[in-house]
């Protein structure tokens, strides 16, 4: 066995042990080491060189990155999630011909879809979706994300929130929390457009808060909202924009230059 692979494998074992212990600091530290070690392998993307241990190395690297993604969810670090996911992705897309499919693949892809949904990056969400095969779409993890998105787009926010009860995997929990927040922001945005003001009770209900306290907290995040006499006033930049001044000077200049150009047509 290649000493490098042994080294990586051993480090990975330690990582997994720490992961099971939920010792996330240790995990992050080990992961960083692992990644540096991985750069030594020529068989990995983007080089994909044909080495005798290529398959083994690829599998190992994929495994590491899959763990890295899950770890990032556990430590609730979206940036790390994105980073690790992208590094993992070539193993799914480009190396699929050489490696057996990973059991974790759909779970991770589903997580990624959910992340995009949470971050309200709908366009990217659909791009990712298009890349998936028909079989993949049948997978419960993916299906879950797709259904959520549909409800979200319809505006059936209650269905989004109720989907919590049917989680395909425990790691999805974190994203559902975030999703609730995203949904609330959407509703708030609609409210601003739809109403000048709402009674506190109605607002609480519409925004799906369980108590006034939470509502007040939420309102604090929006400086242009205001509570007065038991009503919430949405005073965003409603006042119509002042009538624009006619750019007379510019128009005159333009017309003159047209005239001059016409004169030049010879």
């Amino acid at each position, binding site marked *: 066995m290649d000493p490098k692979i042994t080294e990586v494998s051993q480090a990975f074992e330690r990582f997994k042990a720490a992961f099971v212990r939920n010792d996330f600091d240790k995990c992050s530290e080990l992961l960083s080491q692992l990644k540096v070690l991985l750069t030594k392998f020529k068989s990995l993307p983007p080089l994909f060189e044909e080495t005798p241990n290529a398959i083994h190395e690829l599998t190992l690297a994929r495994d590491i990155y899959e763990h890295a993604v899950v770890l990032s969810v556990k430590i609730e670090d979206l940036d790390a999630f994105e980073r*690790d996911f992208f*590094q993992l992705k070539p193993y799914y*897309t480009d190396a699929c011909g050489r490696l057996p499919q990973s059991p974790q693949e759909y779970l991770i892809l589903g997580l990624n879809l959910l992340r995009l949904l949470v971050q309200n990056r709908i366009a990217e969400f659909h791009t990712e979706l298009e890349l998936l095969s028909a079989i993949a779409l049948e997978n419960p993890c993916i299906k879950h994300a797709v259904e959520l998105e549909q409800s979200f787009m319809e505006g059936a926010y209650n269905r989004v929130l109720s989907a919590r009860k049917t989680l395909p995997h425990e790691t999805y929990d974190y994203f559902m929390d975030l999703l609730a927040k995203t949904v609330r922001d959407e509703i708030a945005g609609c409210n601003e457009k739809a109403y000048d003001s709402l009674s506190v009770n109605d607002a609480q209900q519409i925004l799906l808060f369980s108590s006034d306290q939470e509502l007040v907290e939420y309102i604090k995040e929006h400086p242009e909202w205001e509570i007065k006499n038991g009503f919430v006033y949405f005073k965003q930049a409603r006042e119509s924009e002042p009538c624009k001044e006619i750019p007379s000077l510019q128009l005159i200049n333009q017309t003159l230059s047209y005239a*001059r150009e016409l004169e*030049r047509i010879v």
Partner: protein
Amino acid sequence: MAGAATMVSSAGGLLAMLNETHPALKLHALSNLNAFVDYFWPEISTSVPIIESLYEDEEFDHRPLAALLVSKVFYYLGELNDSLSYALGAGHLFDVSEDSDYVHTLLAKAIDEYASLNTKAAEAHNESATVDPRLEATVERMLDKCIVDGKYQQAIGMAIECRRLDKLEEAITRSDNAHATINYCIDISHSFVNRREYRREVLQLLVKVYQQLPSPDYLSICQRLMFLDEPEGVASILEKLLRSEIKEDALLAFQIAFDLVENEHQAFLLNVRNRLPSPKSLPSESVHSGSPEPGSVQSENTTTTEDVQMTNGSQVDGNTSSPDPREAIYAERITKIRGILSGENSIQLTLQFLYSHNKSDLLILKTIKQSVEMRNSVCHSATIYTNAIMHAGTTVDTFLRENLDWLSRATNWAKFSATAGLGVIHRGHLKQGRSLMAPYLPQGGAGGGGSPYSEGGALYALGLIHANHGEGIKQFLRDSLRSTNVEVIQHGACLGLGLAALGTADNDVFDDIKNVLYTDSAVAGEAAGISMGLLMVGTASEKAGEMLAYAHETQHEKIIRGLALGIALTVYGREEEADTLIEQMTRDQDPILRYGGMYALALAYQGTGNNKAIRQLLHFAVSDVSDDVRRTAVLALGFVLYADQEQTPRIVSLLSESYNPHVRYGAALAVGISCAGTGLSEAISLLEPLTSDVVDFVRQGALIAMAMVMIQISEASDSRVGAFRRQLEKIILDKHEDTMSKMGAILASGILDAGGRNVTIKLLSKTKHDKITAVVGLAVFSQFWYWYPLIYFISLSFSPTAFIGLNYDLKVPSFEFLSHAKPSLFEYPKPTTVPTTTSAVKLPTAVLSTSARAKARASKKEQDKTNAPKSSGAEPSAGKGKSIDKDEDSMQVDSPADKKAEPEPSYEILTNPARVVPAQEKFIKFLEESRYVPVKSAASGFVLLKDLRPNEPEVLTLTDAPSSAASNPGGSVTGQQSSASAMAVDEEPAPPQPFEFTP
């Protein structure tokens, strides 16, 4: 198995890795991205800010790599400026020797950038302007690489553009063929270096390099020195050659002198001549003390006397002391070279050539004369102009002498031009010029006699005869100018003086002319304005300001116009130096001054093809409110572009379709000027539709321009030449044609056959140097729109198309060489013939209604004429003869057809001196067993011949005239008799008898 084809589909993973905290990961990502950037730049481009921040991160170890990556991405995005600045940040990672589009593009960009920075710094004279040292380092790396790889031409181009003269020198000295490299360098410095000052620097460097070479090419060096205006250098080279033991060196010196003369730079030649050291021994001293004043050594007459004195001197010398033989040889050579530099030899030889080879066709003139209505004075004078142009420099004035009666109908200004025409015919007849014109000249003090018009014309004629070689006649013209206050005479004297003293910037003459200007007489003032310009050509003197001030002061349009042109002439060839003045003129309220501004642009940037000038001219051509200015702006394009003729038709083609007839006229003349004598097919195609324009003056311009383009092009090389000749004839014969276009047609037939069919219009000398006289001549010629007598200025632009071989004694030995092309390609046009009766059937009825008077006169002429080809056998009826000329085309087509029966030889033997038209030059070969070998391989012009068999007797052809002229040292004093005997050839016609005008 699929692994071989495995390829990443996205750079997303690598990009994500950039955000990792560990530097090793960043490095890994960067180096991989750098390898894949060609495929994934669209993806990477969204992450450029991250990479940029890496580059800016002081603590990151691999900043150059980040910079290189960013640079490549920007390159793909087309943001070359950003790309370049990051590439510079990449330092040595940016490999100039890499063979990729990226590197090529960026290098080009870097060099451009560096060149423009350096240029800007040099132009602002701001040494402190900072050039990024990294940029400089990159460019230097590139230059060194080119030099090491032996790509000297690239290196030279870059070095010149970047103003790195040190590198230029290195490239030239290290190249294996220094001569070829230098020649390449000269070419590009003329065609691509726009700034005049900088071009001087380059040339100075070249001269320096040249002189370091083991076998210097003196011909080229002297040309460069002339451009740099360094007469000392030329003089010292000439002296070195003349003092040499070897005869060939002396021949080379003579050749250099002839080449310098060809460039017509009068002031420079004078300087060289004055700087040539005289022989050290006694005789030379005596020569010099013998000549009246050191300053006037240059005058033609005195040179001849000097010649004589020289022989005297050496005789005396032989008597007294034993002379140093080397000094004696040197003295003899220096006399010769002084003669050459004075232009005297070349003028004389040219005159002989033009006279002996004159092939002008009097029948054409006759046809014109007969078809022109007497009462139409415009066409009448046009015929006189045409005669002058046709015989320019040939001294053949048969036509005038045969038609004195007809000539006498010219009155007033027509008489002025008729007299001045003699000057064109006798152009270059320096020795007898004054005596020829004597009958018409104002008689000092006598107070009686001729009309002021013929007197003024005669003074103008003297100027034309002595154009650019006026040392001998200047004083006389000045006296004439001062002693008269008749404005017509002043007009003639001013023009004459301007011509004779062209470009000498003589302050005394200037003051005389200025006095005339301040009399504020419209006629004299106009000529004075032009004359001042001629005098100050290319000096950019502050006198221009004075002239401009007066132009604002005076009320006379004519004076303003004269001054405007004069001011334009002063900035001739000064390029950027003239910008202030041009700006001032083009912004003036007065359209006439703006019009002068156009000429200033034309002349300041003549032949440079400068983009800025072209842009400005095009701008005025379409946006000025005055038609005159627009016309001139288009016309001026011709001057700016003449060095690159192919461009002109393309640039003005749109303008030639303008709705404005003035713009069309300008376009026609622009093509005529810049493509003159080339027969360029595009030019002809552009002019053809204009010759049948709806507006008469456009037709006039197009016909003249066409003639200029087709001059000396034979029908065999372009069939449209024949068609054009027939078109001209048709217009001249057509009674209903407008006067303007008829005049154009008459002039065009003159230009087409100018100088006895032995001259062409050439604005560039063989060494690609602008011929100042020619350009100035055409510029003033284009003024004929306002003032017909200025038509004669076109004669300044004529240069003989001759090969004249000379031996050591500057004689023309008999010598044969080969023209390796079909003779018919370059032969003279067939003389027009009197048609036979068979073709008379096609007579158009309109022509038969010619007035009886014209018929009678014509038939009388015919009887008078004994030797004319016309009287040989054909119908005596003048009416028929005249009208049947129309059918010559069929004749001309027929005769070559007959010839074709026998196969035409593929070569032709020419005898020295021979007519060699520009297109023929590349076919000229020298015979191998020939006795004479040319010093430099040139196919036309004056060529010194090396005699391989010096012991055999030489057979001289054509001209012993120089010696016979020398034997007649007092040549200028006697009257007509001496002038008749002066030309060694027996058939030399006497000048016309003085004819009386009946006012």
